[in-house]
């Protein structure tokens, strides 16, 4: 953490905040398509500039480590995927999510028809109360049966 701070602030590590641009240089975040969302979710900054203090940093690392409980992981994953921060995953969120997954750039996106089909399928599989959005409990339910979730979200060393 102290390596990310500018030199003059290293003295008071426990109270300093690292700006978002520095956080994004971390190797684990550099290539991650959800980097901005991760910074936003874990940052407790009142200015909304997504800077992180040492506590925030620790929070982030502990959630992504091996020993975190799976409902904590799924809770944070839900917040990361919720692009508009409204507490549910609606079609817009899902669309942004899929676009993040398939990469930036025009040729690496699904066509509109494919996107519709995909979102329809996702909602069909996970939306239990059929309200067109996925809330936290539905998300946790789906993710608990997913074999890959624990594997992928849990091995930051």
């Amino acid at each position, binding site marked *: 953490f102290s390596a990310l701070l500018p030199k003059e602030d290293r003295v008071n590590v426990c109270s300093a905040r690292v700006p978002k641009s520095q956080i994004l240089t971390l190797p684990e975040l550099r290539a991650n*398509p959800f980097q901005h969302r991760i910074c936003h979710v874990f940052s407790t900054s009142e200015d909304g500039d997504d800077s992180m203090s040492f506590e925030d940093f620790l929070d982030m690392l502990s959630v992504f480590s091996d020993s975190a409980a799976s409902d904590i992981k799924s809770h944070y994953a839900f917040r990361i995927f919720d692009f508009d921060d409204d507490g549910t995953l609606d079609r817009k969120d899902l669309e942004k999510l899929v676009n993040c997954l398939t990469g930036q750039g025009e040729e*690496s996106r699904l066509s509109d028809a494919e996107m519709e*089909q995909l979102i329809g399928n996702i909602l069909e599989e996970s939306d239990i109360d059929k309200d067109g959005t996925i809330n936290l409990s539905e998300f946790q339910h789906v993710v608990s049966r997913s074999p*890959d979730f624990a*594997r992928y979200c849990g*091995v930051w*060393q």
Partner: protein
Amino acid sequence: RDCQQADIKDLSGWKQWQRTSGKSLKKVLNEAKELSSYLELWRHDIHSIEGKFGTGIQSYFSFLRFLVLLNFIIFILMFSFVTLPSIISKYGIFNSSIAKVPPKNTEPHCTVYKPSSNEGLVYFYTYLKDLLSGTGFLEVTSLFYGYYTIDAAWLSVLSYNLPLAYLLATFAYLALSLLWIIKRSVDGFKQNLVHGEDQFQSYCNKVFAGWDFCITDLNAAQLKHRSLLYELQTDLEEERLKQKIADRTMKEKLRIYTLRIAINTIVIAVLSGCFYSIYRATVFSQENTNVSIRHDIKTDTIGAVQYLPSIVITLANFIAPQIFSFLIRFEDYSPAFEIRLTLMRCVFVRLASIGVLLFSLWSHISDFGQEMYKLTIFDFIIILAVTLFLDFPRKLLVTHCSSVKWCGLPEFGISHNVLEIVYGQTICWIGTFFSPLLPAIATVKYFIIFYIKKISLMHTCKPAARPLRASSSNFFFLVVLLIGLVLAFIPLGISIAHISSSKACGPFRSFNTSWAVVPDTVRGFPAGLQQVLHGIASEAFAVPFFMV
């Protein structure tokens, strides 16, 4: 944080040591795992292929890598148990006894060559011809069966029974191949099961848990993006097709089924045509070479006649798949099923053509080795030639000559390529019994083919228009390989057990059949061991054992 630190101080010295050693052990294990994955052959190449062309094509290259390793291990096996002792004995390090050939009733089956004249160009020509067809100077090297004349090698008190070793090494490599393939296909099968079970949740799994949070390298991230895109597109495509199939009206169904029956009849006709021509070609070529064997001297038969079976087989294997892949477009299956059906048909052509070849060569067992060697070399040459002379010029034409653009760039035909290598592998398995160095040739051949195919893929092919899923294809490739292996068992089994081994050359000269080595050796064991072995071999025990 402060609480944790206080806790640590409270723990006794032993527990602290346990903790730190636990942590460092974990670290060491992780680093060892990372290192071993670096040692994996071609890891980077296959990863980049996966990113650019999808997991379907990547599974082909992993399959190729598996075969290189398998052949290498088989070669090491045969070399250390069979070739090495022979070579060492020939240099007179151990005392060895050569099997006495019973003087009467032998037809000297092993051919003798009249010394060829050493004039420059003719010498070169015969050298090349022999290299390509396994005759001449190659026949008496350790490449072939005839070299292994040592009966037993003595190393102080222990005797190394070479014929037995030869036979056992054959069984060993067959068993090894079988077990390894089964192990790999079980892994693939498990994946299939899991995948199948979660069908109803597969989209959520892919989208919510699709990103690997451990990726730190930008290139790796790019690759992951692309493979995710391919996977999602494949799934959606398959779903659309299923929907389309379910929506078919009765009239459409009728039309499609009659079309399929008609096409299947055409396919059967094509197959019978191929097999008949292979049979005729082999018989013709054997007749022409036999004429000269009667005089114990193999004269210089016209090159083309000797290679005729190989040429015909290669032609049949080249044309038939093209016909099949043309026809299957009319049958309107889903892409995964299309690939499988074409693959099955092509499998049948390729493997059954080897069967037909062996059937027509039935009584000339010593020629098996040569024919297999010829087929291997020819296969390799054809692959090289097709890549050099068909794919690259096509790419040049398409990029520079706009009028030919309708032709388009070639797509990487997975089934065609998989068949080629399964075919080559079956030949290698059958041929290794008759020619113990064949696995080495196969290893080198597949090694070179990997690079040729990769270069051809990167430079001349475009990504498949219909993206394809690999996991089920992977399992299917292994099933096809298994079929090839089982097919290889049949001629080997029959030739070992029933066909009388040639009396003039080879390691089994003093036995009636190759299998006879085993009962002979068993008789030499102490009586108690013999009883045990008889018990194991008796049917009551063997059948349940094999079932398990």
